[in-house]
């Protein structure tokens, strides 16, 4: 099997206005080929976690890491591609479905442990989570019914096991806490 060229990077960034903009601007300017970015809170207050999928065939992944590090708001960047990780995407899929086709679609959804979240006279909406390959297979099977609408989140990922995959030093955590406290008392 060919080694995956898609790299999964995790970045912990300070929860500040503009930080997503800074990262996106950096990717665009340097011509980095980014497949997806997902951003949300992390376990540490004041820190957001970005999962970035980079096409390693067209982009120097090490440069992405190093350039990200240069952003002042970026606290930690790590490439977890080689780690044992769980990676997930979420998709909502609206499929054309006559009353007669519905049960077949429900069966397909069941196989993928997907859920029917809405039913209309001529369509159903399916919610599915899984890794990219699983979502792609489901879409492939649903294609013939007619996909009316599709939305997919970017990939989120976490390394298996007990150790933290994205270790962040205690000093940084304390700094973030103090910064947060300060902005709170100001408010």
């Amino acid at each position, binding site marked *: 099997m060919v080694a995956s060229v898609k790299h999964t990077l995790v970045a912990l*960034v*300070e929860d500040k*206005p*503009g930080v997503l*903009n*800074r990262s996106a*601007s*950096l990717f665009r*300017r340097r011509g980095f080929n980014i497949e997806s970015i997902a951003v949300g809170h992390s376990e540490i207050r004041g820190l957001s976690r970005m999962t970035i999928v980079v096409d390693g065939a067209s982009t*120097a992944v*090490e*440069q992405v890491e*190093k*350039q990200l*590090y*240069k*952003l*002042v*708001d*970026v*606290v930690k960047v790590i490439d977890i591609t080689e780690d044992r990780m769980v990676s997930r995407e979420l998709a909502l899929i609206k499929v054309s479905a006559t009353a007669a086709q519905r049960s077949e679609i429900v069966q397909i959804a069941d196989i993928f442990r997907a859920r029917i979240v809405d039913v209309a006279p001529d369509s159903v909406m399916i919610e599915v989570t899984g890794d990219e390959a699983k979502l792609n297979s489901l879409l492939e099977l649903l294609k013939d019914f007619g996909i009316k609408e599709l939305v997919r989140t970017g990939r989120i990922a976490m390394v298996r096991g007990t150790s933290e995959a994205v270790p962040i030093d205690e*000093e*940084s*955590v304390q*700094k*973030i806490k*103090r*910064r947060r406290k300060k902005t709170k008392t*100001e408010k």
Partner: protein
Amino acid sequence: MKLNGAHILCDGLVKEGVEIVFGFPGGKVIELFDTFAHYPQLRFVLVRHEQAAAHAADAYARVTGKVGCCVATSGPGATNLVTGIANAHLDSVPMVAVTGQVDRGSLGRDAFQEVDITGITLPITKHNYLVMKSDEMAEAVKEAFHIAGTGRPGPVLIDVPSDVWVEQSEYTYPEKIELPGYKHKLPVYPTQIKKALKAISEARRPIIVAGNGVIISNAHVQLKELAEKAQIPVVNTLLGLGCFPQDHVLYYGMTGMHGMAYANYALNEADLIVAIGMRFDDRVTSKLSTFAPRASVVHIDIDPAEIGKNVKANVAVVGDVKEVLTALNKDIETLSHGDWLKQIEQWKSDHPSHEIRDTDRLLPQYVVRCISDVSGGDAVIVTGVGQHQMWAAQFSVINKPRSFVSSGGLGTMGFSLPAAIGAQMGRPDETVWSIDGDGSFQMTLQELATIAQEKLPVKIAILNNGYLGMVRQWQEFFWDKRYVATPIASPDFVKIAEAYGIEAMRVTNKADVLPAIEKATNYDGPFLIDFRVEPEENVLPMVKLGSAISELIEQPKSEVSTW
């Protein structure tokens, strides 16, 4: 203590050691300017265009090693700074730019003179701030100066809505910086030092390429020690000029597109490049795939992202250049590379790129050499961009670091005159020569007014060739001499200077060059000389476009004298 945003900024500037602020007023900074009146410690210099404020702050920072500071109003004031900020960014110059912004309530409504300057400067600053509350000001100022001046330096912008200037808040200047994501002090890894030492001791044809990083890190002493102990020849990038004594036996000039032929040959034949505080810019490497084909690379730089960006490093040593060189010097063996040095000497005598054509005509190279001779290599040389910049780099002797000020990364025409203002203010007791082109000079000549108003004794040499010479040279070499848009008419520069109250003269003969330069040097005040130089002189050597650095167009040898 309660203070308003403007006072907090000014107090912060004073605490950060700022002495001079370059700038231009306007509606959204009027409160700030009013506050300057309370801070006589801050000398305010009024320029005639905000671009000049940024260039002056930039040059001030380069010649002093301190963080430069400039201020502009919102909208057009802020956008006028942009070229200067980009210039500082590409040359790693520490600078803090402060801009006014429309009041908070008007933000995002396309209010009068509103531009998203933090958005615009995102890719050309090291970091930037939009200060939305006056109680965020102190921290922003403290962090801005810290970020600008540490690690790989760069410009930081602080944008301030006008109502934040007058908003009061409790003020204490922060003692500590709490930036969890900013790690500028990277440890120097002993294993990497060992690897570098091994590579150096095994090399038979090593060469040091020393760049701006040596100057920024104040590591010229350590560089000399390394070169001498290990007997490694040294070449400079454009911005590295001055970081190694130019009369040293191991010094072989500037490398790159208009570098000395022997410096380029040496790089081409080297088996080891020790790259110190330089970033393998394309003006150094030319065609990457053919660059230094026989060399492995030890790359020393404070910015990890520079390692492997353009040229693969066999040994990467990330860290402050001075620390790294100190560590190397501790354990470096005494080496000798007699045959290799002899070889480079041979190239040097076969290809004397530093010689000037033998003629009675007024050559620009001759003007540069005379300026250098008269100052004994001790002047601060500030250039524009073009042929004159390259001649200034090739024919000036630069004795000390922080004494050759040039726009390297951005190549900004118009840099010289405003930069000379900053350089002179940073080094008030030294002679500052602006060596400029007739084209570059016309981009920012309004700054003669600033020079006159501030009574700065800047000496200005315009190498007036009647062309946008560097572009004309390319047209001559590569576009069949079709001189489209490169002949450039100029006003009478002597009269222009006089109109600004600045002493000036014109030189049209070779014989008058030296006396004119002496007169200007001894004159107590600013002085401009309009040198009418040979119009179609070319900068040589020149690496052929898209070729290896060893493929050079050179001066025909018959024309060269041993002047």
